[in-house]
């Protein structure tokens, strides 16, 4: 068995399910306080707080509870809906949101394992999306073939952009954090440029939008027209499995982890660190590129400047939350997908600004990563000390610690 850095799941187990649940509860409480504090009914009730304090509390409770209930209805199960379809739709929305996030996060995770801090999923996704879109609307092919080409194109686009980072890093030792940040901006500007030229701009339009991709280039919907969930999700699941195999069972994964943990020892053992650095970034880019196809050929159908949304950045958090372990990443991506989906419903139903989702989301990550804090918040005693371990140095940390080459 290869070593696995403790995954999100491991953390759950290790920190005790109770603590994890409490972490989530704590995050929701903080979010709830924010919601209540800025809720108009609550604030107006505070004006007569001393007369009827319970009013304030009730209003605060209502404000927070309604928001969260809406979030749940939007992300998991809509118990208010009348039809079965509407009831389960939230779950499918969660999966739809999670789809591009999942592969992009896997990309970030693979790079982490190679000791590279890849902030460039955003740019890699854009390149993938450009390739996928172009293939999607220029070619006229039968369905599975066309879609397959689109996926390959997105992989190629992302791989190019990621590989470029790997190559420069391996050749010159330039810090990948700088390279990826810069290439994100370059990709974005390149996209903006191409969307204003005939290469990607919709004929007859002066807006920076691409034509719609052909039906044959689309991921088909999995559960019919009622749901947005598309085949891309299954492809992402397959990619997860593949990455799991890659990182835990394949010789290439072994090399990646070896270089990521100790490039000197890896080199001494005969591993070609140059090749591995480039390949790891190629794979990372390819996975992020696939997210581009999921965006355009799964849900959006056409390409705009905002195709990457904040997926590339969320991917970093997801990868870290999943401890760079494919299975951990999978569940972390679902969690984030649920937040996105739930946030939309919450906003529509209760008018709570969607930004609160970001707050709760980030608090959950922090709390889950620091069980002792949660325990002390809830006044639980320290658990029996586990056997002390050498502090696990994450590959990611080693990565920022410098371009020692």
């Amino acid at each position, binding site marked *: 068995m290869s070593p696995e850095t403790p995954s999100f799941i491991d953390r759950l187990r290790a920190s005790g399910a109770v603590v994890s649940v409490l972490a989530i509860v704590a995050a929701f409480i903080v979010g709830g306080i924010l919601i209540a504090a800025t809720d108009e009914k609550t604030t107006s009730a505070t004006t007569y707080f001393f007369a009827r304090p319970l009013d304030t509390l009730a209003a605060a409770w209502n404000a927070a509870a309604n928001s969260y209930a809406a979030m749940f209805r939007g992300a998991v199960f809509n118990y208010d809906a009348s039809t079965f379809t509407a009831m389960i739709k939230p779950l499918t929305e969660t999966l739809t949101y999670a789809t591009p996030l999942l592969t992009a996060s896997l990309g970030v995770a693979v790079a982490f394992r190679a000791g590279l801090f890849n902030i460039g999923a955003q740019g890699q996704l854009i390149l993938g999306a450009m390739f996928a879109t172009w293939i999607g609307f220029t070619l006229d092919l039968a369905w599975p073939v066309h879609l397959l080409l689109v996926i390959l194109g997105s992989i190629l686009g992302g791989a190019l952009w990621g590989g470029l980072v790997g190559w420069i890093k391996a050749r010159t030792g330039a810090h990948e954090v700088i390279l990826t940040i810069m290439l994100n901006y370059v990709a974005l500007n390149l996209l903006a440029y191409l969307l204003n030229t005939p290469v990607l701009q919709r004929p007859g339009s002066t807006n*920076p*939008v691409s034509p719609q991709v052909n039906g044959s280039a689309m991921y088909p919907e999995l559960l019919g027209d009622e749901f947005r969930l598309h085949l891309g999700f299954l492809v992402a699941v397959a990619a997860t499995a593949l990455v799991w195999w890659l990182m835990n069972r394949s010789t290439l994964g072994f090399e990646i982890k070896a270089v990521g943990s100790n490039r000197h020892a890896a080199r001494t053992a005969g591993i070609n660190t140059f090749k591995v650095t480039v390949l790891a970034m190629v794979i990372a880019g390819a996975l992020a590129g696939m997210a581009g196809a999921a965006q355009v050929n799964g849900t959006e159908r056409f390409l705009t400047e905002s195709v990457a949304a*904040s997926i590339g950045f969320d991917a970093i958090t997801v990868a870290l939350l999943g401890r760079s372990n494919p299975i951990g990443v999978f569940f972390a991506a679902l969690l984030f997908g649920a937040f996105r989906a739930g946030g939309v419903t919450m906003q529509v139903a209760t008018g709570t600004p969607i930004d609160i989702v970001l707050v709760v989301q980030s608090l959950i990550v922090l709390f889950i990563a620091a069980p002792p804090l949660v325990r002390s918040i809830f006044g639980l005693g320290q658990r029996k000390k586990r056997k002390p371990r050498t502090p696990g140095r994450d590959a990611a940390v080693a990565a920022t610690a410098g371009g020692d080459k």
Partner: protein
Amino acid sequence: ACGSAPEEGGSGAAEEIDYTACMVSDEGGFDDGSFNQASHEGLLQAESELGVQTREAESNSSTDMGPNVNQMVDAGCDMIVTAGFKFEDLPVDAAEANPETNFVVVDYGYEELPENMRTLNYNTAEAAYLAGYTAAAYSKTGKVGTFGGGEIPTVTDFMFGFEQGVMKYNEDKGAEVEVEGMDTFVGDFSNTVKAKQISENFLNSDVDVIMPVAGPLGQTAVDAVNESANEDDAVVWVDTDGHEYANGGDTAVLTSVMKNMGLTVFESIEMDVNDEFASEAYVGTLENEGVGIAPFYEFESELPDGLQGELDALKEQIIAGEIDPLG
């Protein structure tokens, strides 16, 4: 936000009626000091004056726009307004899938409209033309400037109209007022430091009238002008009336190129409430007052006499189709 949003449920709120009007913003959000905010005010106006229920959703990213629209449908909205071109084909798909719900699309048009859809577009170049003419007439240095947030038609239309207005002034008066910045774009609609610097670059190179077409970033130009040593520097505001909306606008805003989105959104809702909704591609023009320029307020006295007359004449010519504000 620029200025304060009108308080909802203010005085004389109308009786509540069983009608829900909904709105979805693009990534800018309803406080963007631009088209999202302007459209949003139409919704708030409908709430207070017509007594309709409202729902609103901001899109945090492009991925939220589709789900937001769908959520609105599911929430039983009678009308859904989408603000901004970024929704693209999304509202059409939604409109076709939900014939019971009416859709209003701001700042985007389609070749064929579904029965239950109204699009609201604005020929901002017409008003910008007048503003350009005014700016040229006002400029003491003979240099005016404009810049955009991103290079998109809803932005560049303003800029082209403005440029043509200046050209017209040069032609009519034999002047040589230059327009700078036709290629200058901040690159986004949020980076205030960059936008501020662009404004200062203009002022440093003796441009004395700036028209920023960059949503919330327009405020940076107002601030730059208010801070500049030169008393004459001024801003041409866009979308709303900057005299009220911009922070410190009263001392800086020469005029504004107004795009009456709030009003037209309100009117669309009103139509539907009165069962008069019709599928239509509305285009706001000088003629129907969907676009226009704001009064000059304090700057009135600094403009050449007779300017108002010239502007009125130009307006007539544009309405009559004798002048193409896009050149």
